[in-house]
């Protein structure tokens, strides 16, 4: 990961979005999940884990505590679809890329 | 009265600076982001006013 996480800009954060990442934070916290988004204000990450029972487990890692973000893998089509529909209100128009 | 009003900067309308700042950061989507943020801050302020929460822990763990 190049440089400090919270100093990366929106375009660089976007490159991590929708990928499965491993985040190291604080002294000994590790969280894995599909990266839904990065808050451009606080650099905090939202990680999703889709459970078999249909529930979604959400981890929010605060930007100030982030030590390292590693990409583990790219999403498959099904995961990408779930990521793109999580927390999104129903809209009449299609989403642009 | 305001004796120095002739040299004072023109009065900025409240929220004007914020709108300009948002426009710079979010471009064409700034109005939408501002609307969501305003709703969220309103909820936060209202809850704090009603519930009067106290900081926990009292002393910050990390400065």
């Amino acid at each position: 990961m190049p440089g400090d996480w919270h100093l990366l800009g929106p375009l660089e954060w976007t490159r991590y979005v929708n990928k499965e990442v491993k985040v190291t934070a604080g002294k000994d916290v590790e969280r894995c999940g599909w990266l839904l988004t990065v808050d451009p204000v606080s650099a905090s990450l939202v990680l999703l884990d889709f459970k078999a029972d249909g529930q979604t487990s959400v981890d929010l890692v605060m930007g100030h505590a982030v030590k390292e973000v590693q990409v583990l893998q790219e999403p498959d089509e099904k995961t990408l679809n779930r990521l793109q529909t999580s927390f999104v209100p129903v809209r009449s128009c299609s989403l642009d890329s | 009265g305001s004796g120095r009003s002739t040299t004072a900067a023109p009065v900025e309308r409240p929220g004007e600076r914020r709108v300009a700042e948002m426009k710079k950061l979010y471009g064409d989507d700034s109005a939408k982001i501002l609307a969501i943020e305003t709703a969220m801050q309103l909820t936060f302020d209202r809850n704090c006013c009603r519930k009067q929460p106290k900081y926990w822990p009292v002393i910050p763990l990390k400065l």
Partner: protein
Amino acid sequence: SISTSAASELDPEELQKEQHARSVLREKFLRCLFAMTNKQVYFNLHEKVKVEATFGASDIDVLNFQVSDLHTPIGVQKEALIRSRDVISCHFDV
């Protein structure tokens, strides 16, 4: 609270791209915070402190979380504010 120094060096097309990327990221984040309302949230704080509470709201600068029924190691606090600087991560299910 966001650095715009980089943005000012960009050409208009790049700037627009960056603004769009920032909007998409921010909107998804704000919607996620809204989704936390009234959820049981587990907070992982510095110094290995773990607490749980019912999430109320966050301020837009993400500096404070307003929560209710905060279960602390020494008892329950009915209404509380948690500083985001004290938090490493938090967890909830939807």
